[in-house]
């Protein structure tokens, strides 16, 4: 019976657990899902295609040199008020410049980032904030109306955007080239691969079949380049229309969903957190709004407006789409508010606003991300539907408008091209949504 039989147990240091954050898991799950990755990369490439549409299709030459000297119309007329009428196009043109700048800035900043933790997140947020701010600021200057641009105060405040603007007389460079060559001058010009504007009528080239980028250029009709996907009755190039239509569709999808997700999240979290009469009121409102079939309601509102711009359609889609999101967020809040961490936060007398927006909301937002992705697909579909009915913005290069032309003329490439574009975009967003849903669902985690 010895007392020294068992040596004292060595004190163990608690093992260092390298935790995986929720989002790291989600990212890993998403990477495993091959279809979702196809969706993700397709969305990214669609976005890039939309942004860099003028590189592929534009009637401005990149480089032009004749007896008078050298000019760069493609670059100098990027923010031209005569050439680019659609504000959406102005924005994407700005993005053409901004994206590479962003990329460079990101590489530079990344090296200086702190390893991990809160400071890293703050740095990233600050950098992103500055970049977005600069783009928005410049865009305000670029898209300001002439009256605002003449205002002396605005001239100072919006200087960078205003400096980029121009308003040069519209020149048909193809015609100018033909004239110069007829006169025996030497002209060197580099045009984009599809040297046509998406919205300028070329009467002689109307209803050309697709040449897929091969074969002879129909110079006898005044053609100056290939029409890979043919032309419509107005002689407008279909491929150019599709590319610029992608800009419209992307914008509609993102902005409309952005509007309604914001409204839905705010109303839903109020209802789910406070309950009581706030909840009754908001839930009633949701029920009322859900009684209107989306397309009926949207068309009714659109019909009372005389000029239908795509911004109107975005706004209408935005203010009619929120009930689903609100309902979802409300449900999530009901689930979350019963959990211990909310009680703990309350017992620490943290202000209610902070509990709602900093504690509960981030946890309730993940399912919203999924519905938002599906929502983009839905918004794109609804907008093309409205345009297809002939009730959209007549000036926007919407895929739906193109399809409507196809329906009216029964030209097969005018039906197939925009239809396939809509189908592809919607599928791709739906794929991404499915993938996100699976990745975010803890039950399916492997």
């Amino acid at each position, binding site marked *: 019976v010895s007392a020294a039989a068992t040596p004292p147990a060595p004190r163990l240091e608690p093992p260092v657990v390298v935790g995986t954050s929720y989002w790291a898991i989600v990212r890993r799950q998403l990477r495993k899902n091959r279809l979702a990755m196809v969706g993700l990369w397709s969305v990214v490439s669609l976005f890039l295609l939309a942004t860099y549409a003028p590189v592929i299709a534009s009637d401005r030459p990149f480089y032009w040199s004749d007896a008078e000297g050298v000019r760069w119309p493609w670059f100098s007329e990027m923010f031209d008020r005569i050439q680019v009428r659609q504000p959406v196009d102005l924005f994407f043109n700005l993005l053409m410049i901004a994206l590479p700048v962003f990329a460079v800035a990101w590489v530079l900043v990344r090296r200086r980032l702190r390893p991990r933790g809160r400071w890293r997140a703050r740095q990233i947020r600050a950098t992103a904030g500055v970049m977005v701010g600069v783009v928005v600021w410049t865009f305000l200057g670029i898209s300001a109306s002439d009256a605002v641009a003449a205002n002396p105060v605005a001239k100072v405040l919006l200087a960078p955007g205003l400096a980029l603007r121009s308003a040069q007389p519209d020149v048909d460079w193809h015609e100018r080239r033909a004239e110069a060559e007829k006169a025996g001058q030497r002209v060197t010009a580099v045009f984009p691969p599809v040297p046509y504007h998406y919205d300028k009528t070329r009467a002689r080239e109307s209803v050309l079949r697709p040449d897929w980028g091969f074969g002879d250029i129909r110079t006898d009709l005044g053609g100056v380049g290939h029409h890979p996907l043919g032309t419509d009755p107005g002689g407008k190039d279909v491929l150019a229309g599709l590319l610029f239509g992608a800009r419209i569709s992307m914008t509609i999808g993102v902005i409309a969903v952005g509007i309604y997700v914001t409204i839905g999240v705010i109303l839903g979290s109020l209802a789910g957190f406070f309950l009581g009469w706030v909840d009754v009121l908001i839930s009633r409102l949701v029920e009322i709004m859900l*009684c209107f079939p989306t397309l009926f309601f949207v068309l009714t509102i659109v019909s*009372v407006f005389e000029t239908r711009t795509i911004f109107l359609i975005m706004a209408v889609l935005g203010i009619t789409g929120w009930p689903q999101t609100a309902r979802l967020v409300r449900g999530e809040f009901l689930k979350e508010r019963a959990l211990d961490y909310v009680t703990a936060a309350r017992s620490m007398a943290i202000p209610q606003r902070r509990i709602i927006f900093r504690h509960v909301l981030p946890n309730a937002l993940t399912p919203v991300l999924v519905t938002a992705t599906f929502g983009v697909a839905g918004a794109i579909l609804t907008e093309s*539907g409205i345009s297809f009915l002939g009730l959209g913005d007549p000036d926007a290069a919407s895929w739906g408008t193109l399809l409507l032309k196809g329906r009216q003329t029964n030209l097969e490439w005018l*039906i197939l091209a925009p239809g396939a574009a809509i189908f592809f975009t919607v599928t791709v967003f739906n794929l991404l949504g499915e993938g996100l849903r699976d990745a975010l669902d803890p039950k399916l985690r492997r």
Partner: protein
Amino acid sequence: VRAYIVKRLLLMVPTLIGISFVLWLVVTAAPGDPGAGQASMETGRRQTGAQNESRRIFRAQFNLDKPVFWNDYVSVAPDEVFEAVRVEADASRSPRQRREARERLDDWGNYAVPALIASLDRASGAEERVLLLHRLAANARRTVPTASRERLKPEEIERNREIFRETREIEDKLTLDTHGWTAERLRALDGGASDAASVAMRAAIDEKTAAWKAWYARHADRWTWSAAETWKIRLTDTRFFKYWSNLVRGDLGVSHVHREPVLSLIVSRLPISLTLSALSLLLAYLISVPLGVWSAVRHRRPGEQAVSTLLFMLYSLPSFFTASLLLRYFGIGEPWRLIPVEGFESTDTFSMTTWEHVKDVLWHVMAPLFCLTYASLASLSRYAKSGILNVIRSDYVRTARAKGVEERWVIWKHTVRNGIIPIVTLLGTTLPAIVGGSIIIESVFRIPGIGYLLWDSIQQRDYNVVIGETMIVAILTMVGILLSDILYAVVDPRIRYE
């Protein structure tokens, strides 16, 4: 369950009021008025008298000329009216100011007549006097409510005749003929010009002024109200009150394109759309349940994966694209002519037997039905599949299998009934989707249902129909959602509502 149903039925009332209120907001809060652009489309800034007139009638028809909640036009001050007329006459003011003054005068309508008559004596220049006379001719006129094809009551006919007679009188006897008059001539008149034409003009103006005064003296009782009447007008002759009182009476107005009450117009189109939607729903559920069961049973096998991918693609395929493709390749005869291009039935249905008629409708409806159904079919069968998969994994199914129950019975008896409960609730979202989709499908295939009616009415600016129809459709959807909720309670006995 009965208490639940009663409660839901009672809750329909506030929802109904909410629906009407939302639509009222749409009509009222919409910036500008839909008629304005219609009038100014051709001539740009300059609007002709006829266009002004059509705009005025349009606003009157939708009560847009009335104040929203509180009618103070009834006590509009003569000074204000006179000032507005002067602004409208003053060429030195900006076009915008003048337009606003004119629109204000238009909105005051009949109520401004006493003030205009009083202003006749105060007008200084010839130009103002001429303008006042024109104003009177426009504002004193009463309009006939949009006629429908329905038989009118004798007293209504009598009233309309009276109004027409009065309008004729105003046009023939009281309206100043200003043909060939110019602003310079009028100004010359003020300067004391005494050539023959000026004298004639002056005489004409004086004559009409006297005529109007006489006319007003005869009709003055129209504008003399007791205090109670004034209050009644203040409260009831407003957009808000008119809208709700019409609604309570079930009066959705008259379509000015079809010359028919909106309600009966919609009711006459409804059977077609209901047939289409009901068939589509039926098809979607009939096919999606077996399909869902099949894919749940064969989960992750090659054949099932192919079908699931196909369904996923179908779900993303826009119905208007499919419809255009079908019409292009199977409708117009290049290369095939297999489906009818438009319509719900042939034109010669009267010579058919009932059976032939049904066959004819089915033949017409085939393609639209396909386009309307496949999307909801795809999403329903996906939900059915996941619902059944959830049940198949549950303990009691394992128990059943362990007991040696045949697989067929396990699936059809134990699993399916529980597994499809979730898709019953989807009725509430599928129904609005199908109804909404019918607008596109009906207008592509030109099927004269309510979807086509809506599209057509928007194109023709027949707003009574647009608003009325959206309201009816919302009410129908509300009933549909209610039915699906009740059905849910019936199908799933576990659900208890307090």
